[in-house]
């Protein structure tokens, strides 16, 4: 890395090479807003149906395992911490430690998905799924609850998968020394994405699991 910070804007003739970490972070934040509003649409639906079917939501939430939800919350919070620690480690030029922390994040993410798989599996087993036998006997409010439950946790799970892929890509680039102590914006961006996924879960957890 022969980066000279005084000539940050140096141009290579044929190709327009232009490094702008601040701009890249700005792009990432703007992208996060689109994610916020993507889930925002679902949160509006959730709020509406909870308002319309307040009692049914309490009944339906009884089907969910608070303990599982809480464990998953702890797992995600921990994975968020390790991403931040990975950034700190890389900035202190400790590549190995940084990669270790990212491995922990990936591990946490996978555990989260496994838990989710068992949670969904149990519901399917009891016939609680769209058009499922048990769900058809339930009230309209409960059908709405589970419809939203599957869409929101499903979309969230999909974001975990994307986040893991993003972090995996970043790890590969750290290994290849593309992302370094002086060029870490991609790592930070993957962290921002992962934290957003965490924040969404911070809201999903009380809204779906903690209704009594």
């Amino acid at each position, binding site marked *: 890395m022969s980066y000279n910070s005084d000539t940050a804007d140096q141009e290579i003739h044929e*190709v327009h090479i232009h490094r702008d970490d601040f*701009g890249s972070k700005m792009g990432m934040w703007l992208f996060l807003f689109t994610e916020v509003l993507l889930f925002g*649409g679902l949160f509006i639906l959730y709020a509406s149906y909870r308002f319309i079917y307040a009692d049914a939501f309490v009944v339906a939430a009884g089907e969910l395992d608070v303990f599982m939800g809480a464990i998953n919350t702890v797992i995600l919070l921990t994975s968020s911490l390790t991403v931040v620690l990975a950034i700190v480690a890389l900035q202190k030029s400790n590549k190995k430690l940084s990669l270790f922390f990212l491995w922990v994040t990936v591990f946490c993410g996978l555990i989260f998905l496994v838990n989710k798989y068992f949670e969904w599996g149990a519901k399917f087993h009891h016939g609680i799924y769209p058009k499922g036998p048990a769900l058809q006997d339930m009230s309209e409010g409960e059908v709405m609850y589970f419809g939203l439950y599957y869409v929101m946790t499903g979309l969230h799970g999909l974001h975990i998968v994307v986040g893991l892929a993003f972090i995996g890509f970043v790890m590969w680039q750290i290994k290849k020394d593309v992302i370094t102590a002086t060029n870490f914006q991609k790592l930070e961006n993957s962290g921002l994405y992962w934290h957003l996924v965490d924040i969404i879960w911070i809201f999903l957890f009380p809204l779906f699991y903690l209704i009594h």
Partner: protein
Amino acid sequence: MANGTIAVPKKAAEVDFYHVRTKHKGIMAWLLTTDHKRIGLMYLSAMSVFFLAAMTIGVLMRLEMLTPGETIMSAQTYNSFFTLHGVIMIFLFIIPGVPAVFGNFMLPIQLGAKDVQFPKLNLMSWYLYMIGGGLAIFSLFIGSGIADTGWTFYAPYSIRTTTNVSISVFAAFILGFSSILTGLNFLTTIHRLRCPGMTWFRMPLFVWSVYATSWIQVLATPIIGITLLLVILERAFGIGVFDPALGGDPLLYQHLFWIYSHPAVYIMILPAMGVVSEIIPTFAKKPIFGYVPIAISSLAIALVGYLVWGHHMFSSGISDTSRVIFSLLTFFVALPSGIKVFNWVATLYKGSIEMTAPMLFTMLFIFIFSIGGLTGLTLGALNTDLHLTDTYYVVAHFHYVMFGGMGLIFFASIHYWFPKMFGKMYNEKVAKVTAYWIAIGFNTLYFPMFIMGYMGMPRRYYDYLPEYQIYHIISTVGSWILVSGILVMAFNLINGIRKGKKCTEDNPWGGTTLEWTVPSPPPLENFDEIPTVTAGPYDHTHIHKQDRQEVSN
């Protein structure tokens, strides 16, 4: 002045972007380019094809309405046609139109930048646009036929119909993604790549309007994204969130749909208003009147645009309280739009007006858009809306604001930036004639719809009572005038590109913004040297001074 002559050997930077040597050759030089100018032109060519297709469908629909009963197509075909016409026109032409073509081409140059912030992402947006457009067309030929829901895909019908709704909806979802990425790119570009001295209030007004538009693209499009995904999930798995049979509330679909689609109206019109604010000072040879109010009103329109979506749902059964609130808020939108129109007209006052083709289109826009805007107020008022809702009055209104607004300005933009984009010139006389031709056709086509609508002719019907026939005949004849005008205009432009006379001056119109300081067509990275800006964007004295200096030298 080393332009144009072949004998003078050019430095690499002076070769225009068409002829500069790039890594890839031939068609790949276009398909793999990250140059914002080429991407803009790629949007332009794709968009022209989509526009012509949707226009043809529109003409066929008008032909069907020539006589009561079945004229040339069945009711089902008619349903599919108005859906397809709406989907293509709105998602493939009106929404991306001005920002994707002229925003891409001009915005970085107007800011004094070499490209957008994320050039690769920019290319990816184009591919997403093409995939989305391709899917929409693809849905024609497979399965059980084109969606027949109208472009709004209202639940619960969109959940129940057996036509290809899922694919059309997915196409719209991908197009939304393309739109989001373009918006994100422009926002970052405007924040990061302004040249030295280009403060916020020295940016051209076109940039301001694209800035406001981009915020809407980023903050509204995801909501329709998720809504459309839900429609697909409903159809595939029966989740039930919009299905009244399962306890869902279809009005929530309408809410979510219009939470995006009303702000989207401003995605359509704001960039066009920005272009007007560029064209008028150039041809009035006068600084724009009220620069700051126009700039701020763009942001205000973007914000207020989020508050009024309920006016699309007045007759749908939403609560009376919200109807009153939405109606009140709707009237506020008129304020910032009014500010703009007043400022444009005030700019003309005591200006030295040069009635070129782009200026003529712009003047016709102000006339037609004002009709569209004012008839919008009658629709925004609760009591009149209940009478007029879902009639031809609404059809006329939105064609006046959308086609008369965005469409005419799209034509004006092509004529305005044509010499810069192609380094050639179209036939000015023909261009002016087509402008009048299009305006006459436009009003003949859409004005009778106001009258029909007021009398009670409902929209989206392929049949009607005989007393409406005279208006339908006038309207259909209008469609022929309009379409022939557009075709002549297109022919004139294509002819201009192919064998128009060379226009290699940097600044043929006497424009004051930065794109007029670079060669026509611009070199690959626009500027040899990043310029430094020392004054506001519409400073004509500055231009004159430069001329005088050149003369005295």
